């Protein structure tokens, strides 16, 4: 059906703001580059685990920001503020529950995502660097788990963190210094709680956001891997040198299939 003139006019009006933004920033083009990508035709739900982990992380970030409005990182007030969030404040039980259970969901999805990447061989050339970044993300995620576990400030939190800090101390040479840094004082106390809170809500999430940015950039640049059983994608030619214009050495010569 041919578009009527009226319809064309409506579309132009609707899209005008996008054109305005694009002309001044190029952001629409970048968004298209990021979202509207070609992917192999034989991918499946297995390739969505990374996006699921990203969603879980964003959920943690949003619920965490709101929980920080009501949480008090002080030894005499922390447990009370958590009880207050859970039992008194409207919707507090829901948001804290999302954060608490979402933490486990995030870690589980990370492991599923990593298993998919490993079993599909998606860590191989040229995606090794993205595997490395992924491992850093896993470590950061587990650090979030370690630092967040102390914050409810109940008996479980206190003694689990005591064991965790002392485990660090058993590492040779620098272990005791790492443990002393984490603990702050002679014992787990106000310094430990405030430090873990700062690490949990500022430093580590910042690092995770930055690493996710790199991770996604590489995903977009290198494309989604075909499954190992894919017949169509194997041996596909690189286009335009595959975006390797910055190489110092000569690009490797494409091997002839024997």
């Amino acid at each position, binding site marked *: 059906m041919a578009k009527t003139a009226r319809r064309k006019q409506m579309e132009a009006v609707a899209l005008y703001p996008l054109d305005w933004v694009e002309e001044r920033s190029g952001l629409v083009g970048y968004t298209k580059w990021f979202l509207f990508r070609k992917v192999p035709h034989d991918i499946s739900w297995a390739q969505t685990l990374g996006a699921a982990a990203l969603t879980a992380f964003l959920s943690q970030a949003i619920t965490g920001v709101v929980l920080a409005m009501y949480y008090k990182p002080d030894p005499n007030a922390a447990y009370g503020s958590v009880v207050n969030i859970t039992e008194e404040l409207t919707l507090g039980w829901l948001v804290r529950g999302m954060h608490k259970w979402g933490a486990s969901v995030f870690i589980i999805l990370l492991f599923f995502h990593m298993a998919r990447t490993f079993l599909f061989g998606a860590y191989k050339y040229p995606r090794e660097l993205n595997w490395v970044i992924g491992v850093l993300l896993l470590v950061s995620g587990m650090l979030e788990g370690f630092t967040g576990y102390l914050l409810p400030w109940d008996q479980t939190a206190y003694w689990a963190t005591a064991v965790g800090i002392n485990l660090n*101390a058993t590492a040779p040479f620098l272990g005791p*210094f790492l443990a002393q840094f984490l603990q702050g004082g002679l014992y787990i*106390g106000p310094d430990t709680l405030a430090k873990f809170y700062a690490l949990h809500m500022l430093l580590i999430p910042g690092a995770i956001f930055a690493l996710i940015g790199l991770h996604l950039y590489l995903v977009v640049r290198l494309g989604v891997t075909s499954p190992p059983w894919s017949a169509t994608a194997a041996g596909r030619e690189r286009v335009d040198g595959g975006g390797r214009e910055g190489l110092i050495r000569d690009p490797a010569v494409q091997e002839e299939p024997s």
Partner: protein
Amino acid sequence: MAPGLSDGQDTHQVPTPSLWPIGFAIGIACVLVGLVVSVPVLVVGALIALVFGFLWVRDLFTTHPVAAAAPGIDEKSRAATVADLGDPVDRATFLSLSTIGVGALIGAGITLPPLGFAVLPSFDGEGIATRDVNLGPITSFPEGKYVIATFLENPDQGEVSRRTAFIRNNGRTDDGVPSFTTLYSRCVHLGCPVQPNGPIDEDAKTDVNGIELRPVLAASFGCPCHGGLYDSEGNRTAGPPVRSLDRFEFSIVNGDLVLGRVFSVANVQGTGASARIAKYYKAFPGVHVDGVERFLYPIPTPGSRG
């Protein structure tokens, strides 16, 4: 043969020795002395080192006329190099290098203080100072029996500073000095709270000034977390702990038992008043203080000296 040798100028191959490294070394020496002696000396030393370091680096980047006549460079280009001597680094290179340098300086100025502030307070100052705790008259500790003493080390901090000690009055040593066994309740595997294996006499419990004393019939101690077991002297008898239970230093002030800082114990030989205690600086749980494994932890943790 290299051109530089062919024209008989081999004696000039080596650049004239520079004095800048000597000035730089003097500056660094001043910095080191200043670190120990005083801040002004440190600042002056740093300035000297900076100035001479800059001159030295500039000297290194300057093309020496003869040294530039390296093998494979013909007379023509050599002459050009000599002509360039007045301006060894071109403007664009100088500007980009100095931009990078100034950026690095600013970056260091911004990041180093917060980094130091994030790390260093954990290792010195008020935060790692122990406080002495007065447990009351020594007569409240029956001879030969363990008493569970719980107390707040720092009442301002509240419950988080609650400590537990297992204390046994051993009477007097052969020299006539009062003897106490003062075990610290934290397991030396990974720091869980060790429990006495025996009935607690709750009826005889006393609570004076926040110091809670409960007699207990215990000849051994066990940890609920991972099953560490200790005998009545705190020596490990089973499970994962790597040394004997830590102890408090104690003193007797006006007839009161006063607990001081905690120290670590490799092992205890003998019992009660005649026990020989292998004493070390307080170490984190799980850290070896004796045996070959102690070489894995060569530096005592800051704060362990109390």
